C-alpha cells in the first residue's frame, strides 16, 4: 500500500490461480498451524502446490524442492502483491494463519468472485484486502492475463481497479473495514471504548439469565 499523488493504492504483479473453492487448508496446510507465532508463514503459502516434497514447520523455501509449474515459483509472480482467483476463496477452516501466510508472502489484495465468510473477516484484521468482483469480471481478468498482462492497480480511495491507467472495474467494500486496513486499527482498543456499555449489558444479562453464568 502506498500513496501516489493523493491516492492510496495497491499495485503490482498479479498471480492467478484458476480454481474455485480454494480452501484454507490449501492456502496453508495444518502442519504449519503448529507455530505459536503470528508471523513467518511466507514460505508455507500454498505449500502443497508450491513444493514437490513434504514440508515441515521450520524448513524454509531454500531447503525445499520447488514445483517449477506453480505460479508463485515463476518470475515475476514470485513477487506478486495481488492474487486473482475464482469462487469461494478461503472456504473451510477458520485458521487466520491463511491470511498471515498471504500477508507474509507480500499479498496485499485478493480478487475473487466470493470468499469464505470467516476468511473474509480475518483479512481485514491483517491488512489484506479481499475484493469481490462478478464472475464475468473475474473471467475477463483471467482472459486479460492469458494475453500477457501481469499488473493491476487497486485504488483504495475510489475503490477501483485499473490496468495500465485504464479503469476496469469498481468494487464495494465497507468503509469501516477499509479504514481498518488503511490505518491498521486494532479492534480490541476500539471496542474497549464501549467498556461501560458492555459491563452494564453483562449485569442485566446476569440478572435476567443467571444460568448462563452458573459455572462462576
Amino acid at each position, binding site marked *: 500500500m502506498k500513496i501516489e499523488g493523493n491516492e492510496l493504492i495497491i499495485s503490482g504483479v498479479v498471480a492467478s490461480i484458476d480454481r474455485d473453492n480454494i480452501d484454507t487448508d490449501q492456502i496453508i496446510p495444518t502442519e504449519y498451524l503448529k507455530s505459536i507465532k503470528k508471523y513467518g508463514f511466507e514460505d508455507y503459502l500454498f505449500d502443497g502446490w508450491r513444493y514437490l516434497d513434504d514440508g515441515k514447520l521450520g524448513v524454509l523455501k531454500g531447503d525445499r524442492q520447488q514445483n517449477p509449474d506453480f505460479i508463485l515459483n515463476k518470475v515475476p509472480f514470485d513477487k506478486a502483491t495481488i492474487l486473482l482467483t475464482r469462487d469461494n476463496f478461503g472456504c473451510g477452516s477458520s485458521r487466520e494463519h491463511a491470511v498471515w501466510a498471504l500477508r507474509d508472502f507480500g499479498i496485499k489484495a485478493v480478487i475473487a468472485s466470493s470468499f*469464505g465468510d470467516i476468511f473474509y473477516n480475518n483479512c481485514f484484521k491483517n491488512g489484506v484486502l479481499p475484493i469481490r468482483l462478478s464472475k464475468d469480471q473475474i473471467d475477463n481478468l483471467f482472459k486479460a492475463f492469458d494475453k500477457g498482462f501481469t499488473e493491476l492497480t487497486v485504488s483504495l480511495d475510489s475503490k477501483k481497479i485499473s490496468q495500465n491507467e485504464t479503469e476496469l472495474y469498481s468494487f464495494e467494500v465497507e468503509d469501516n473495514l477499509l479504514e481498518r486496513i488503511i490505518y491498521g486499527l486494532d479492534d480490541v482498543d476500539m471496542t474497549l471504548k464501549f467498556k461501560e456499555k458492555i459491563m452494564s449489558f453483562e449485569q442485566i444479562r446476569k440478572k435476567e439469565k443467571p444460568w448462563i453464568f452458573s459455572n462462576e
Partner: protein
Amino acid sequence: MPKTLYDKLWEEHHITTLESSESLLYIDRQYLHEVTSPQAFEGLTKKGLTPWRLNANIATPDHNVPTERGKSFQTENILDEISKIQVVELDKNCNKFGIKQFDITSVNQGIVHVIGPELGYTLPGMTIVCGDSHTSTHGAFGCLAMGIGTSEVEHVLATQTLKVSKLKNMNVRFNGNPQSGVTSKDIVLYLIGKIGTSGGNGHAIEFSGSYIESISMEARMTICNMSIEAGAKVGLIAPDATTIEYVKNHSQLSEEEFDSACIHWSKLISDTEAVFDKEIEIDVSLIKPQVTWGTSPEMVIDFDEDIPDLNNIEAENKRNIELAKQYMGIEENQKLTDLKFDKVFIGSCTNSRIEDLREVAKAVDGKSVSDTIVEAIVVPGSGLVKEQAESEGLDIIFQKAGFIWRDPGCSMCLGMNPDQLKPYERCASTSNRNFEGRQGNLGRTHLMSPLMAALTAVNGRVVDPS
C-alpha cells in the same frame, strides 16, 4: 415483526450498533484449543489485559494430541516436539490466566465440540465462539455459535464481545423419513452437494422439518457441524423436548435455574410468519447414502451413482473436476464402488459421539476388517464417550473385528498429529473435509457416514448398506 430464531438470538446479545453495519454482540461462551489460541493469549499479554470474564472460557487440547496415549500420559510425552510446544503453551496460558482447562490427563479431555455439550457448558440460547470453524456444531442446541479467527479469539478474551455484521436467514426444511442405511451425515452431505460449498455464504442456516424433529442431539450436531461445509458459519436448530432432555442430563444447573431457563428456551423458535431470505425444502426419503468422490465436500454423490464424466459437464466446472479426479486417482468410468480403500477413520467432531460408535459397532459386530485395509481406527470424541463405549463393550466389538481403539482427539481428521494418511492412500472417513492433503500430504479422503465407513472397513470397498 415476525422474527427468525437467528434474529432473536442476535437481538438478545446485541449490545450496540457500531458506525457501520457491524454490531457488538455479547459472547456467553468461548471454547479454546491449543492451535488457534497461543497468538491470542500473546496479544492479550502484550496489551496488559486479562480475560474479561474468566469462566466464560473452557479449554482443552485436541488437534495435536496423539491418540495412542494409554494411562498416565502427560503433555511431556508428546513425541513431536513442535506439537508438544503448542500443547504446553495451552497449559501455561490456562494456568497463567486461571482458565478452566481439561488437559491431556483429564477424563473430560476431548474434541472441543464434543466435550462442550456433554459437560453442559453449551446451553440453548447462548452465543458461542471458538477459533475453529466447526463451532457451528453447538447450533444444534439453538445457540448462535460460530467459528472465528485468532484475532477475534483475542477480542473475545479481552472484551467478551465480537464485532459482527448480521447474516441473512436461510431455512432448510428436511421432511420425511430416511431410507434404511441413511443417516444425518448422508442428509447433510446431500444438502452440500445440492447448494455447494458456497451455497450458505453470508447466511445463518436454520434446519427444521419433521426429520430434524425426529432425530437425536447427536444427529443434530452432525448436521450443524457441517453447515460450514455448505458455507454457513452459523447453523442452528430450535430447542425442543429432545434438546431439553439432553441438557437436563448433561448440565450442572440447579433445578431452579433449569426451570427458569426452560421458560426462556421454549421461546427460542422462529415465528410462524418469519421471512427467510432463502428457503430450501428437501424430502429426505429420496436420499441415498452419500459418499464424496473429489476434493471438496460438494463433490458428493449417491454411493452407486456415476462420478461426473469429464466429457459430459459444463466447461465452467471442467477444470475443478479434472483436478479433483487427478488428485483422487480416479479413472474415467470408474465408480465409487470400484475403488479399493486402504484406511478407515471413524472419528472427528462430526461423527465421534456415542451414537456414531454404537452404529459402527452394530455394523461390524461379528465381522472382520477386510485384509485389504491396512488400518482401521475408531477414535472416540472424548474421554467420556470412550468410557461410555467401553462400559457398553463397544471397544471389544471393534477390536475383535480388527479395528484399533484409540484415545480421544481430532486424530486423522487433519494432519496435525501422528494419525495421517501416507501419499496416495485412500481413506473412508467420517470426518468433514476431503480437501487435498487434509488427512496427510497427497492422501485421498472419501467422506461418508459412520455406517458406510464401517461397511467399507469390512468389505474393503464402498457397498450398498441395505
